[in-house]
């Protein structure tokens, strides 16, 4: 009886973990199969499909969240949807964990601190250590050295010294924060994935325009103003600009045109190399416009909680989350 009770509890716990699982492998959870024998008199015959643990036809009694989510890949400046891909839910559809995002942002902030503030103590302030005045007989307060912290020009008692403010965070938590931030943006519809080679093209007449003598004589400023107007127009037409709350553009490498143009109009958006991106950057501005390559790089370099460090020879066990399969093109 006790064993039966424990088994029932076990089964209940498994069902519970299935319903609420987020980060663990869903396929590794065993669903009670038909081989399980009930001893109740009023037993209901189990449905035949219940043995099927395949994600395509889940048992009707359980709600299984989708294992993949669709992602549209756009052409960059034209904003034309070009392809539909499926990405793993573990990558782009994690539940929002504000606490983890907070941990990550604080960790980044700590490590970004320069920590170079410095002041001199009484032993570092230069000057003679001779007694300032006689101990007695002057009618003034006793005074030792000029470097005393209570005197003007003296040292600082507990002043700042250069130090490292950096803190530590569990790598798996930090990686989870990355994907949580991306998932949050994805669910809000603020993650625009663009095709590889994302670069801002200037109008074809621009080169010819630069060649003309009037432009050359007017200096670099007028060319910069042209680029600024152009990039503003591109962003405003796509509803990515200032009125839409700015955008962060993330590319896998430095793109001259895009980066230089966006530097001219900081109120419309900013561009970042994927190596310079932090979790905090993913949470700022109205939307993230990210190159597909860069998104893949961000996810692949931040999934230590999904990929086991130990090699598992059993091929039946799920190895890793797959993202980027093409659904429609």
């Amino acid at each position: 009886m006790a064993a039966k009770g424990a088994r029932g509890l076990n089964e209940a716990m498994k069902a519970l973990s299935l319903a609420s699982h987020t980060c663990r492998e869903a396929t590794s959870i065993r669903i009670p199969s038909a081989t399980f024998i009930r001893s109740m008199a009023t037993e209901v015959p189990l449905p035949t499909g219940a043995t099927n643990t395949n994600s395509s036809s889940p048992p009707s009694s359980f709600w299984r969240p989708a294992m993949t989510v669709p992602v549209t890949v756009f052409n960059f400046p034209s904003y034309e949807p070009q392809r539909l891909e499926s990405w793993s839910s573990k990558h782009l559809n994690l539940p929002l964990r504000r606490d983890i995002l907070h941990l990550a942002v604080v960790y980044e902030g700590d490590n970004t601190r320069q920590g170079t503030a410095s002041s001199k103590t009484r032993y570092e302030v230069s000057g003679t250590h001779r007694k300032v005045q006689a101990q007695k007989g002057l009618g003034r307060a006793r005074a030792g050295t000029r470097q005393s912290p209570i005197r003007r020009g003296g040292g600082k008692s507990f002043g700042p010294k250069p130090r490292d403010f950096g803190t530590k965070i569990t790598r798996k938590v930090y990686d989870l924060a990355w994907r949580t931030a991306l998932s949050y943006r994805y669910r809000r519809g603020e993650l625009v994935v663009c095709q590889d080679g994302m670069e801002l093209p200037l109008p074809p007449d621009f080169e010819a325009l630069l060649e003309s003598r009037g432009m050359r004589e007017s200096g670099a400023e007028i060319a910069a103003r042209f680029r600024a107007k152009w990039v503003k127009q591109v962003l405003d037409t796509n509803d990515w600009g200032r009125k839409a709350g700015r955008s962060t553009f993330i590319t896998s490498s430095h793109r001259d045109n895009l980066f230089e143009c966006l530097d001219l109009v900081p109120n419309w958006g900013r561009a970042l190399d994927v190596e310079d991106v932090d979790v905090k950057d993913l949470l700022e501005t109205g939307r993230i416009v990210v190159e597909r390559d860069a998104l893949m790089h961000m996810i692949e370099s931040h999934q230590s909680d999904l990929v086991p460090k130990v090699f598992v020879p059993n091929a039946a066990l799920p190895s890793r989350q797959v993202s980027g399969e093409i659904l429609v093109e």
Partner: protein
Amino acid sequence: MRRIPRLRRPSGLTSSATNISRPIAGASNITQAFAPFSSSSSRPAITPRTTPSSSSKPSHISRFYSSQQNPTPAQEQTHEPGTALQTDVQPTARIVDEFGEDLDLEGEGLPVGPFMAPRPRAEAARREEVADPDYEPATTAAGLKKVGGVADWWQQPDNWAPEGDFVSFRPREKVVASSLIDAAVRRAVIETFALRQIGREDDLVGVWPTTVSNADLQHLLAWDVKCAEDGAVTLGGDATTVADGLTWKDDQDSGDYAAVPEALTADEAAALRETWDQSWKAISLSDPRIRFAVTKRVFQLTGQLVPDHQLSSITTVKTLLHVLKKPPKPVTFTEEVQKRHPELLELPNVTFTPRRVTRGDKEIALGRFQLMQDELKKRGLPAHGHGWASKGGDLTRMSGKM
């Protein structure tokens, strides 16, 4: 993933000058646009000429002429101190002498595509070079016309023609009217299923032209689209003609810039909506290709993008319409209460004021304001505001503006 974007047909809004693939296909255009300038270097004087890209657009020519009539500041400076009879030929000839014959004068100050470069600097003629004995060059700036820099050069409409504007796949204005969204979705559904019936699967993910005359569009929307119980869709019209309209024809590109087909109005769409069979909302969109094509077309027509995370929930036209038709947020809280909570306004003991209740409002409510105004008038004081004392005067003084 390919690194070089595939050349796509233009979004088909108006003309070739405004296609989306233009920025990508820049290299060939540059050579085309630049060729005439370099080949015509031997011409001694500036003659009005148009570039090949602007030959079909008379606006360029008129712009060019108007800039001729209004001399640039540099030229004006040459004219002003002396007689107005000074001709254009002299400074031009001077520059040509100075820089040699191989100088490319033809392209200077001329429109480059839709953009106008600033005029090259022109120098005033020296006193000894002017034949007119009455010519007296200015020695001080007094009386001379003030000329500015080129800071707002691109903000002037003459220098940046609308053809040079960036054109996106997304329309410039988002369509929010419910009836127009209905019409766009219906059009997208008809076009998508027409392509599928013809069997042109590859074109489902491509870019389709949007140029359809109003009458044709109304005719298309009036088709009797039905969805049977088993999910079969009958379009109620000829799918081939629709599918033909979705292929790019070369003569479409060279159309006049102004020939934009008049758009469907919200009233027309609402009238059409009454005639539709309700079963069209049950058309299944669960096929990912169909769903992709429909949502893409709707995005192109209305600017309404279905968020990725909602894509999987779109199974029928009805759910798509539900996602697209979000009621716009009320602007102010009072408006929201008026619209959504009328029961609050009906209560006799509740009053709503849309504006802030000021001190003056309270005095008016008491009936004391009239008396105050009379007293102020008696003393010669302003009835409203601060009179001569400007608002925030201290601030302007402290910030050094006064």
